[in-house]
């Protein structure tokens, strides 16, 4: 891909000034790139940035505080960077942000389901992008899939596919696929009565193994080793293998991310048990949007509503209650 080569050149040029550059490189499976930490310009040829560059590199930035590093960002990754900046968790002068026009990323789970009668995703030998399709090499030969059938849902509703605040933008900016996030997924879910929704979550959470990949993949889950989920003193969550406690943790995560979550979807993607935990976060994002007219990670002058206090919120007229 031409963009990829341009990015490789840009990375080579920028690397001498930087501690490292975070992007993507080949992963252990055809359908996913792995995060790549480039330190040596000679390795830049393995750099990838495309449909399989799913991981959000913003996650790693706070670890490098105080060192100047480069980071390649898709539109959603850039929002995470924006929110980290806004909260003072990283410093702008420590970053060299490289943007490129993201045309969406794969949802490997969707692809796995579509190819299930041919092979497992882990049996694919290789895959490449070809315009609006991807061409996959399976054990019984090559076949292709349309990108739109395997693209992540978050990309379909993404309003900001081009990094907003980049030091360098490689390629042409593209128009978003959507003009408004209407939270159609939530609206559909909320058709069901409350008991049914609770039953849904109990069933989904019954698979949870408490690995906390959902938490550790979240660029804005910043408590890290101090998380309430594992705190012993006080001991907030039981060690018993109970569904309620597992759901309780998800609700804690969602509440702590209210007004901070950018909808990058990494929590849900990281979950090895395929639990749709993003939906809970979206429920709170929608509420924050309605109540505070705020979307995380976009407006560098904005203030995350739950990190501030106003005597009276313009959209919550409690004095009229």
């Amino acid at each position: 891909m031409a963009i990829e080569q341009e990015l490789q050149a840009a990375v080579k040029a920028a690397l001498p000034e930087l501690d490292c550059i975070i992007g993507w490189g080949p992963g252990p499976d055809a359908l996913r790139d792995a995060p790549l930490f480039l330190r040596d310009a000679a390795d830049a040829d393995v750099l990838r940035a495309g449909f399989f560059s799913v991981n959000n590199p913003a996650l790693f930035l706070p670890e490098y505080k105080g060192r100047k590093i480069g980071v390649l960002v898709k539109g959603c990754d850039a929002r995470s960077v924006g929110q980290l900046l806004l909260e003072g968790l990283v410093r702008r002068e420590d970053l060299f942000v490289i943007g490129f026009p993201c045309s969406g990323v794969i949802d490997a789970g969707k692809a796995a389901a579509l190819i299930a009668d041919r092979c497992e995703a882990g049996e694919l030998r290789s895959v490449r992008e070809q315009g609006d399709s991807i061409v996959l090499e399976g054990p019984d030969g090559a076949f292709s899939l349309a990108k739109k059938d395997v693209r992540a849902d978050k990309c379909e509703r993404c309003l900001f596919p081009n990094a907003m605040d980049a030091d360098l933008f490689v390629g042409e900016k593209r128009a978003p696929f959507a003009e408004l996030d209407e939270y159609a997924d939530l609206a559909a879910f909320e058709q069901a009565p409350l008991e049914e929704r609770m039953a849904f979550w109990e069933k989904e959470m019954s698979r949870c193994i408490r690995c906390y990949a959902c938490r550790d993949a979240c660029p804005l889950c910043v408590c890290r080793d101090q998380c309430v989920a594992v705190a012993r003193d006080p001991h907030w969550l039981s060690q018993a293998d109970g569904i309620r406690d597992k759901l309780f943790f998800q609700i804690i995560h969602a509440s702590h991310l209210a007004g901070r979550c950018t909808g990058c979807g990494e929590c849900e993607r990281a979950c090895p048990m395929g639990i749709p935990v993003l939906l809970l976060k979206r429920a709170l994002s929608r509420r924050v949007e309605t109540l505070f007219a705020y979307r995380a990670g976009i407006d560098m002058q904005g203030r995350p509503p739950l990190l501030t206090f106003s005597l009276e919120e313009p959209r919550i007229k409690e004095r009229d209650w």
Partner: protein
Amino acid sequence: MSDRSFTPAFISFKALSGWLRALAQKATVHAPRREGRAVVYRELGDGQGLESFLRPTESAKHVLFPRSEALFSFQRQGEAAGAASGKIRLQEPEGEGPAIIFGALSCDARGFLSFDPVYDGCGTAQAVGGIAKDPYYLRRRANTSIIVRACKSALNTCFCHWVGGGPASTEGADLLATDLEGGLLLSPCSEAGAALLEHPDCVPALPEQIAAAAALHAAAERSLGEAPPAGELAASRAALLALFENSEFWQRQSAQCLSCGACTYLCPTCYCFNITDESNGIAGARLRSWDSCMSALFTLEASGHNPRAAKAARLKNRVGHKFSYYPAIHEGRFSCCGCGRCIKSCPSSVDIRKIVLAAIKEAAHV
């Protein structure tokens, strides 16, 4: 091969659920089931989709080593409850009955072989005749039969052949099931496995069915990726020790790691646990629950000091334990069965194979 002394049987897919249901009369049967994007073990139920080969996302270790279990419960007694002098009544949990794991992968069965020495007298073996036995694990171990379903093909992340396994390995299995046209060939690998075949629908297998299964096993073997030359992997033991102080190496290897617990919790050979007393008022329980060396709390000391404060030190432990410290005290056996789950399900694509090979290479250079 041990199955020479046992007679293989054939069961048609039509009869499969009836047979398992009959087994479920006497034991709890755990079998893979697709749920959403994951494949999990569930107790046998309707619509389990037993006819198709499913590769479980999680390992089967929770059957013998539950995610959380009460070692005992306690309750303060009588009027003095709450007073320091009050008596405390302890109660052992009720043990479960026998269990059968149907549809385990061959690596899952081999995974328990890494558990066994640890829970059966480890560390006390020579000195005091192996008294440090874990009755909870050992009781379940003795009570559980494992029916392995041979893999039809390997995934990119599979490397069982690096560590002595294979898609149709019978090590640790009681019965080996192979998917044939119309049904499963069931080859017993133990007395317990042979006993499971005492059912009218398990009919003696035809010679051509046995031959077909052998051909499928060979084909699955061929689908595995390249392995390092025989014996080369054993160098990991010394290499990982030599790199113990090389923090630069471990920082590079762990850069992409999130320090979550997905790898260790899905791993068939990770056996670490934590113990917590949880009580409410005058009653409670002592819980044992899974723990992970990738977690900061794993080594946090009461003083507040943490010898593994950084994720680099934690990843070093995970890899070092499996490919150096464990084999050093367990006759060279790696505590890794090569199932590849930690690679396949790692949200950040950390590849333990690459780390081990990089360590061998790096140590050779110094």
